[in-house]
């Protein structure tokens, strides 16, 4: 019996990347920025959202796509800020794929929105693999986790455009080596901006807000251009 082969060369991310491209096109036409927040459950993603919406919500319109509700109160907390929140049902998947995100964004009133914030499913592995048409992935790590996470999950920190070390107010009570954490992040991605902050006390939040504002401005500037 003879054997043979059929050559294929199919990029397995091709379909996802096509949808991600559609999202970018749709956003560019409307001058909308988009960030994709990735971190473990309980790392403070929702508090981070709250703090930026409270600071910038007066002048900019946000839409939140929730892939991970950390507690049942999270959606309620965000609704209370008077912003549009869509729940994304990933069907038990460990990450969000571009097609699902595309459908959710298509349902929004794009003319009224300045930024789409995606709160991805709570893990550091799978969401890092998928392009969902965002401007920036934001890697969030709280001081209640391990300093070694950046080297354990290098892809996320390589793909990210900025990193947030959250819950800094708890640092004094913990055995967390912040310097080691920062050096681990730099080992994986030496150019990554790192924001050390505490959403609860407001410590360090201004620098983070300035970064978000930069994203908003960049999207407006490149609006309409291809």
């Amino acid at each position: 019996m003879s054997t043979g082969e059929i050559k294929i060369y199919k990029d397995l991310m091709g379909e996802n990347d096509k949808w991600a491209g559609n999202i970018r096109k749709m956003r560019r036409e409307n001058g909308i920025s988009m960030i994709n927040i990735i971190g473990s459950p309980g790392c403070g993603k929702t508090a981070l959202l709250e703090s930026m919406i409270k600071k910038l919500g007066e002048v900019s319109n946000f839409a939140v796509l929730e892939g991970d509700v950390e507690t049942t109160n999270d959606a309620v907390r965000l609704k209370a800020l008077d912003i549009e929140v869509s729940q994304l049902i990933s069907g038990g998947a460990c990450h969000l794929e571009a097609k699902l995100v595309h459908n959710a964004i298509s349902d929004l009133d794009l003319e009224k929105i300045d930024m789409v914030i995606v709160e991805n499913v709570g893990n550091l592995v799978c969401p890092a693999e998928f392009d969902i048409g965002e401007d920036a992935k934001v890697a969030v790590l709280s001081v209640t986790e391990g300093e070694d996470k950046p080297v354990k999950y290098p892809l996320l920190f390589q793909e990210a455009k900025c990193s947030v070390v959250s819950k800094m107010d708890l640092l004094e009570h913990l055995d967390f080596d912040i310097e080691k954490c920062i050096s681990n992040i730099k080992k994986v991605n030496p150019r990554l901006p790192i924001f050390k902050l505490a959403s609860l006390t407001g410590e360090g939040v201004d620098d983070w807000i300035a970064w978000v504002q930069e994203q908003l401005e960049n999207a407006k500037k490149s609006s309409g251009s291809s």
Partner: protein
Amino acid sequence: MHELSLCKTIVDTVLEQMKKHDLPRGSLLSTKIDVGAMRQIVYEQMQFAYEVLTKNTIAAGSELDITVLPVIIKCNSCGWKGETDTIMAYCPECFSVDTIMLQGKELTLEKLEVR
């Protein structure tokens, strides 16, 4: 478990190709894929998903053959080029951070081995 959704794409393509080439059940020996070392894929989970998804299809009994491609970077400062540890983003020669990754994030279905 993004292995499952990736494997779904693989198996869908395999079945499509088998139909296109008129290949009967049992004729597919293996499906070859290339995976960059930077990709966080659990190979055992990938194999398991492949087995589950091909079960009761014309591709049943075939194997998933995974080739891991090492990370290769090129340094823009000193010109060094070579394989590197997946977590290191800087040049091992001159420690410059101005590097580009030439290989390591691949995820491609390469070919089917048939009889």
